[in-house]
């Protein structure tokens, strides 16, 4: 049964403003770890705040379990304090005038929990997050990572059925972020809470989520597992937003471009149905090099190019290939035994090609032809 259900949710600030969120339908299942992923300004935080009740709707409805918590048509609005959710803010929003302990037990005191039980709960959650030794300190005396844990502890203490996280890791340094990511995953497994996590960091979304919802300009682009999103991006936006270095996009039908002509010919020769395709995408790691054309496997998409840049990234390399002014980027984990200026042959397997129509949507027909064995 879905835990949270958004139907036709719309939000705009002011009559003439563009929709911050437009006609959003989304289900978040019980116990799921859902990431809302997108560039800044795409409406993901607004969506999260609407789920929390901190932002009201312009149209649509939100249910939590069987209960309607927000509906414009029915005139229902359950205030945030009655929604029994947890929300960790990007700024942590710890109460500066309360100690860590009082920050953590604030919600329990509100619920009039008996003292003994309350202390036990607070002890447990503080221990889990490793902040028990700071209990008498004030938030300003803690580091960013510690504050972040307190913000989490404060919400976990009341044992919410839904935990909302608004870019909680974005203010942490890289090492701490990695640690907290692992911690979040562990907490999700331990508490079995439904988590909705907002981030603009695709890496974070890929590593944490059970499901990712990609948003752009207020519109939902794709919902799927991390692998789905990466392997079968629903459109060019998703393909380009997810993946680093970003996917190579080759526009088809550009007579001046040799790569474009080659790609068009490659598709056209083999698959007549794909002549109306608008562009193809090739992930950098799908591109391979061959020192001469003869080494390219049979049936692969291939071409000639010059190596114009080799960028070591520590353990892997990004290689820039140029052909008649156009660039392709590829990555490799093996030390490339080539030099800048060398002429090479590049190739990619047909099933590594993502084909999009002229509007930028994924051509499902292409998948059937290029990836015959794969289940969808």
């Amino acid at each position: 049964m879905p835990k949270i259900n958004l139907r036709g949710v719309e939000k705009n600030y002011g009559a003439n403003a563009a929709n911050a969120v437009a006609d959003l339908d989304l289900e978040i299942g019980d116990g799921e770890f859902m990431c809302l992923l997108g560039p800044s300004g795409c409406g993901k935080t607004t969506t999260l705040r609407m789920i929390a009740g901190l932002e009201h709707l312009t149209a649509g409805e939100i249910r939590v379990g069987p209960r309607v918590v927000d509906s414009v048509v029915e005139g229902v609005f359950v205030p945030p304090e009655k929604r029994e959710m947890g929300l960790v803010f990007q700024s942590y929003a710890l109460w500066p005038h309360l100690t860590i302990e009082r920050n953590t037990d604030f919600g329990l005191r509100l619920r009039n929990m008996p003292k003994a039980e309350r202390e036990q709960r607070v002890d447990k959650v503080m221990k889990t997050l490793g902040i028990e030794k700071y209990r008498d300190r004030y938030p300003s005396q803690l580091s960013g990572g510690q504050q972040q844990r307190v913000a989490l502890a404060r919400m976990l203490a009341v044992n919410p059925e839904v935990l909302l996280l608004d870019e909680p890791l974005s203010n942490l340094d890289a090492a701490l972020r990695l640690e907290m990511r692992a911690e979040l995953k562990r907490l999700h497994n331990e508490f079995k809470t439904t988590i909705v996590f907002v981030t603009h960091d695709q890496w974070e979304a890929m590593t944490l989520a059970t499901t990712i919802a990609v948003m752009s300009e207020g519109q939902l682009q794709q919902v799927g597992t991390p692998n789905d999103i990466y392997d079968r991006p629903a459109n060019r936006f998703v393909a380009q937003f997810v993946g680093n270095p970003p996917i190579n996009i080759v526009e088809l039908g550009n007579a001046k471009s040799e790569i474009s002509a080659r790609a068009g010919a490659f598709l056209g020769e083999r698959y007549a149905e794909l002549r109306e395709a608008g562009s193809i995408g090739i992930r950098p790691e799908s591109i391979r090099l061959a020192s001469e054309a003869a080494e390219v496997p049979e049936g692969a998409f291939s071409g000639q190019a010059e190596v114009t840049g080799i960028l070591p990234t520590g353990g892997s390399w990004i290689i820039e290939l140029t052909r008649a002014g156009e660039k392709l980027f590829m990555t490799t984990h093996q030390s490339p035994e080539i030099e800048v200026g060398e002429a090479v042959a590049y190739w990619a397997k047909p099933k590594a090609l993502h084909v999009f129509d002229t509007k930028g949507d994924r051509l499902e027909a292409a998948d059937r032809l290029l990836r015959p064995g794969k289940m969808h």
Partner: protein
Amino acid sequence: MRPLKGSLAAPTRGQRLRYRLKVALREPTTTIGFLAAALFAYLIVVPIISMLSDAARVQFGDERRIKQDVGELTWYYIERVFTSRVSRDLFWEPLVNTLSVAVGAIALSMLVGGTLAWLLSRTDMFGRRWFSTALIVPYMLPAWTFALAWTTLFKNRTVGGQPGWMESLGFSPPDWLSYGQLPVTIILALHYSPFVILLFGNALRRFDSQLEDSARILGASRLTVARKIIMPLMRPSLISAMVLIFAKCLGEFGVPYVLGLPVNFDVLATSLYQNIASRQVGVGAVLAGSIMLIGIITITIDAKLMKEARRFVTIGSKGSMNRLSPLGIMRLPATGFAVLMFLLSVGLPIATLFLSTIMRVPAQFNLDNFTLEYWIGTDLNTIALQTGILLSPDLWNAAWNSLRIVGVASVTSGILGLLVGYVVVRTPVKPLGTFLRQVTFLPYLVPGIAFAAAYLSLFAVPRGPIPALYGTTLILMLALIADQMPYASRAGIAAMMQLGKDPEEAAQIAGAGWFRRMTSIVIPIQKGSLTTGILLPFISGIKGLSLFVVLAVPSTDVLTTYSLRLVDYHYTQAANAVVLIIAGLAYFGALLGQKLTKTNLAQGLGN
């Protein structure tokens, strides 16, 4: 999970409205906002309208002269003020005087304050820390402290009573030095130069040296840098200092009253006061309206200029650097200049006033001329005040009134200010927030003395269920609250903006309702700014004169009006003693505030 296909039907207009109403009225914020809006409409808007309508209606007692019935519409007062034979004395000359004093004070304070600001914030002058507090002190003292000190020194035979020190020493200062434009201009300049030091100094301190360096590296000379880079970026702060000083000069009553009266040097504020004192309600209303209009025009121009200037406010970036210019051999003379300004604006007036209270005859520095009897004596040979000032029950009465009236008003306006800030920042009904912000700002445009006139107009007679309040302490409190609302609400809004939504939303998510969030999150966090919000109005209220001089009667005398009464009676020593007490209260109040809130309160005084 796949998205569900087939969305809901779009809500109708009615449904949207119902939903939004539900969201808006769910919490008391909006209700409180509407109550506050009604309160301020009554305390601020209604008095002003009432006063303006007085200007266009025949007032009681003028029926014969105007040949119309009381309450009928008339142009009489407007003509009298602007075009009649007396208009020169009533309006035009005071207007010219007001403007020339204001312009002179601005120019002088820019020169002095600007130099000091630069010395304090961008050079290696000695004792900068100490001076940065010491040079602000003039603003903590009531302006007419200086006026009294000036008369103590320069009073000549034009007026009776004790002669000034100069006169006693055998020099007879001419009238132009003793009274009128010159002393008023100098005193206002000294009193308001702290504004320039604070506003201009802050801007200079925030100014990023790297902007200067970039221009230098590109080959600009020092002068070019000053002209093309520094001055344009400093303009907003200079403009706001100028506007602030102008607005303050416009409403300044005490200084021109003490120093202008002997030579009939009238400014708009004193002209208004005299008309109110002689019950010329209609003429007073026209004058008050004119002062208000000038105030509004000034602020509008300021807003326009600031809007333009704000386009390039990029100063205060992260890599901000503040490098001090070495003064070299000028280091000592520069410090000397700062010392001189401190002596002139604080040391000399205070010392003069104090010495004058312990001397029988002015400027006779013999030991037997010194006495404490004006403070604690019992058998003074005077008619009305036969004991030393500290033994006079009138003083204690006035002090108690001051503390009570100003205290209640400050606490009330501080709390109201925070509440207004809360509503403005939080209410989903945006027009309500806008209205509250604007209505509480309105008194800022109305100089205190005009505002007092408005209160007099509304509350002098019973209206509906509200009895006549003139002569009560309540009218003083209400007027003071309304008068302080611009500062209080601005402080409240700023504090609430700074707090941001997050801490409160976090409490909301944790399950706290509105009342709980107020008591355990918002107010505890805002404790500091609430203290400042109460203390600042308290200090300015204690030394405030223009509201009280119109609205107080002898039984509701406060310290300031009491001292002015003593000035009128020529009890120089007693008057000076009371002024010193006020100055002490204001100064130590400010100090206490700094201790309590651990902030530099002087910087807040500029707001």
